[in-house]
């Protein structure tokens, strides 16, 4: 990371939630903020935009101080930001081109130049033939692309996206996501992308910041986070079973609640233990064989995903197994049925807490 | 506003309703014309009817026996003085017990105080009798009667005002009082008005009655006689509204009836108009039906006590 293009600490109170989030990014970087709903993601974005004032902290973008708590504060219109929300929120009375030209016009660009720029931006997101369309004439995906063009038409130093794809249907979402990814590659400023969709985060972000209950719980590149999730929420997002464990003796961990977990490594002290749902094998009868972790469990939930199914199990620990639909049928899996689950010791990865 | 407000909501409701009482054909149309809240000074018993639209209602004390006897005796005597002695029906006035029901009276705004007083006395004398009086400009009242307003009696400011009245509805007509004009000014007299001629001052604010109503016609006649052209800022819809503009201090002078100046009790000062320039109006009281209660009311107005009340409030003899 060269000189930080974004250096911010956002500290404020929203209702009962105390938010305290620090962010840093280099030019051209995309920061993905993930976290459960009501955890402070949107507040962070609104504070960066200047819509919410800071109680503590600061926002410095490209060497310019936008806000220091208790000090001078730039209003939203005095910050070089672009904002894109779940709904496109196009100005319904303006044509696509005038929506996109709104930012440059507001920042003093002459009408002609602003419209030329707007035309270019619309062409960049593949809407060159819809410049004169009214928002009511656009599909949701097209509207989202106009919103993207509008947010970037004034060359903001900071681009804020809050769940930009969440209102779209799955097919449109996939297409808009790749459009967004392409456009973000050309964008030189810092992007902060709030999402709860792991796919958005993993495909669009250079670095992930997890915010839970107002605080940052994990920061890392997508591959780092995938490898070593550090909270149950992060693990759920990346699809892993994660347990806080105590490593007391050779190759045996003790989970919260006292359940032992046999591992193929020899860690020591406080560790995380992660198990991929694919590594969990389900049986009708107690399995014979090499698996060293075997539990008799009860099914609490079955979710179908394409050709596979996620089976949630409970007691003596919470465990998610990912199995094929064929297995579901063969094993007669349904909520409430009792099964045996096994995990090989070598499928359990551990890392320090 | 300085006028006191004594209101009894239940009384007001009763006073405000115009029960058709067996004249259903007339009821609906009457209500549609001019009987709106601004249409007249509708009140049962009003002692402070200075403001337009005001509905002051005085309390009606329980029937006092002494008053009853006194009024009955005097009312009985009054019948001899009346040009229509036969108006006394079935001895009701003498006995005081036989007459019940409601009399609905439409009266010129200038009669507010005197009719309120007469009605109150009459109701004390006849516990079963209710008098409902609605006040307004004579012109409006005549229109209301012609449109079928459910009234028993109409009393107007001037014989001329009665001319458009539908003759088919008139059962009897008697002149019961007279009234002359006077200049009303605020007590401080900010315009230094001393005579009719002063009314032509350009920086003076003069309020008159609208020319369609009797006090406006009378004022126009007087001003013509005096060859004065006053600086008029407003022509009000009836004489009480005209007076109110002066008593509120918004106007410097108005031409109203002498009785209004008396009734205002110091809220305005009166400046007399010489007899040779003045216009005198004779007030007719017109019966619209022959019901006993109606006759009792008309009789009370024409009686010496009625006349005494009118005289004490500034009216002249008929």
């Amino acid at each position, binding site marked *: 990371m060269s000189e930080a293009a974004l250096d911010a600490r956002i500290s404020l109170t929203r209702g009962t939630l105390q938010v305290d989030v620090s962010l840093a990014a280099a030019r051209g970087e995309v920061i993905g903020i993930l976290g459960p709903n009501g955890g402070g993601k949107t507040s962070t974005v*609104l504070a960066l*935009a*200047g*819509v919410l004032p800071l109680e503590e902290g600061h926002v410095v973008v490209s060497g310019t101080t936008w806000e220091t708590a208790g000090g001078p504060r730039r*209003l*939203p*219109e005095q*910050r070089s*930001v*672009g*904002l894109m*929300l779940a*709904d496109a*929120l196009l*100005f*319904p*009375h303006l044509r696509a081109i005038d929506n996109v030209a*709104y*930012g440059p016009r*507001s*920042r003093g660009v002459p009408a002609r130049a602003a419209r030329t720029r707007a035309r270019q931006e619309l062409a960049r997101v593949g809407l060159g033939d819809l410049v004169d369309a009214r928002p009511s004439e656009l599909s949701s995906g097209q509207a989202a692309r106009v919103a993207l063009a*509008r*947010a970037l038409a*004034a060359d*903001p130093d900071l681009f*804020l996206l809050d769940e930009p794809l969440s209102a779209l249907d799955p097919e449109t979402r996939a297409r808009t996501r790749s459009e967004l990814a392409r456009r973000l590659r050309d964008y030189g400023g810092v992007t902060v992308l709030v999402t709860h969709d792991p796919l958005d985060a993993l495909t669009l972000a250079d670095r992930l910041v997890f915010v839970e209950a107002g605080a940052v719980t994990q920061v890392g590149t997508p591959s780092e986070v995938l490898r070593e999730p550090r909270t149950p929420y992060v693990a759920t997002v990346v699809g892993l079973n994660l347990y806080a464990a105590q490593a007391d003796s050779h190759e045996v961990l003790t989970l919260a609640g006292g359940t032992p977990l046999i591992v193929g490594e020899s860690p020591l002290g406080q560790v995380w233990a992660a198990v991929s749902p694919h590594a969990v094998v389900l049986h009708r009868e107690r399995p014979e064989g090499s698996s060293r972790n075997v539990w008799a469990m009860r099914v609490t939930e079955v979710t179908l995903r394409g050709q596979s199914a996620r089976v949630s199990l409970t007691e003596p620990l919470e465990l998610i197994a990912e199995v094929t639909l064929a297995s579901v049928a063969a094993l007669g899996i349904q909520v409430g049925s009792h099964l045996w689950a096994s995990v090989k010791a070598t499928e359990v990865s551990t890392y320090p807490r | *506003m300085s006028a006191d407000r004594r209101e009894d909501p239940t009384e007001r409701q009763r006073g405000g309703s115009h029960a058709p009482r067996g004249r259903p054909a007339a009821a609906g149309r009457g209500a*549609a*014309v*001019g009987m709106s*809240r*601004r249409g007249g000074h509708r009140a049962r018993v009003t002692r402070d009817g200075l*403001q*337009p*639209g005001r509905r002051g209602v005085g309390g009606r004390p329980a029937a006092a026996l002494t008053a009853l006897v006194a009024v009955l005796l005097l009312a009985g005597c009054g019948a001899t003085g009346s040009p229509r002695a036969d108006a006394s029906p079935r001895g009701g006035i003498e006995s005081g017990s036989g007459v019940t029901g409601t009399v609905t009276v439409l009266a010129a705004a200038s009669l507010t105080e005197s009719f309120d007083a007469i009605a109150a006395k009459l109701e004390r004398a006849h516990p079963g009798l209710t008098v409902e009086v609605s006040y307004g*400009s004579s*012109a*409006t009242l005549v*229109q209301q009667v012609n449109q079928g307003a459910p009234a028993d009696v109409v009393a107007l400011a001037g014989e001329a005002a009665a001319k458009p009245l539908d003759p088919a509805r008139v059962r009897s007509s008697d002149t019961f009082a007279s009234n002359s004009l006077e200049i009303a000014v605020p007590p401080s007299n900010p315009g230094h008005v001393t005579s009719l001629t002063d009314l032509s001052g350009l920086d003076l*604010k003069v*309020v008159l009655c*609208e020319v*369609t*109503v009797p006090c406006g016609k009378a004022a126009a006649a007087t001003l013509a006689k005096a060859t004065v052209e006053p600086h*008029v*800022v*407003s*022509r*009000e*819809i009836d004489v009480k*509204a005209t007076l109110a*503009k002066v008593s*509120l*201090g*918004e*106007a410097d002078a108005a031409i109203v009836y002498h009785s209004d100046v008396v009734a205002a009790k110091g809220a305005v000062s009166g400046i007399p108009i010489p007899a040779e320039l003045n216009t005198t109006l004779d007030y007719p009281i017109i019966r619209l039906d022959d019901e006993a209660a109606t006759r009792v009311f008309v009789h009370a107005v024409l009686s010496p006590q009625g006349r005494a009340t009118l005289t004490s409030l500034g009216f002249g003899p008929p």
Partner: protein
Amino acid sequence: MTWRSRLGLGGPALVAVLLLTLPLVALLARADWGRLVSDVTGGTALPALRLSLVTTSSTAVLCLVLGTPLAWLLARSDHAGTRWLRALLTVPLVLPPVVGGVALLMTWGRTGILGQYLSPLGIEIPFTTVAVVVAETFVAMPYYVLAVEGAMRGLDPRLESVARTLGASDLRYLRTVALPLVVPGIASGLALAWARALGEFGATITFAGNFAGRTQTAPLAVYVALQEDPSVATSISIVLLTVSVIVLGLLRGRWIR
């Protein structure tokens, strides 16, 4: 619907329709059409109609110029004081107009709380055309403010966040986004306020008096005419009715759903 429920609802509904429409029919039926033109062009009718047009238009302009910013500020504030202020502003809506007229006299009259200072300066409002406009604005502006505030509150607040981050100031957002989007609300607010002003009687006659050409608006002329020549009253009423229906029709087609 069964025939029974159709009858049970249809009966009262029909009565309601008759209550509302029969007076209009009666007005048209009883009109002396042969005299309509001479009634309206002669005497006090034409000056009164002209005065009504001038004063109601002025009232509409005042509502637009003063009421729009007020509606804007009300719509954007959630302060407890704002709620009280809004409640206070609706009082003229329910106040009997005559009481409004008295209150205006107490304010602008010679001895009124403002009038006593204006009078020595030679500024006297009562009995002037200005007084008519003041009275009409007093009764009509609440309709406008509430209608426009409602429309402004209906705007998505996120539109403002987006506009602000695009560099638009408060005022630029108001001018380029909020106002264009509440044009329907402004139009219906203006129609309501204008109609209320056109029908204004009580506050006007109490505060501004009744003088042909200066303070005698069309409703006052109707009232006075009724005392002597009901035909003139009917004729003016028909003109008022026609103008109201035309304005309502124009607005309905365009902006009012």
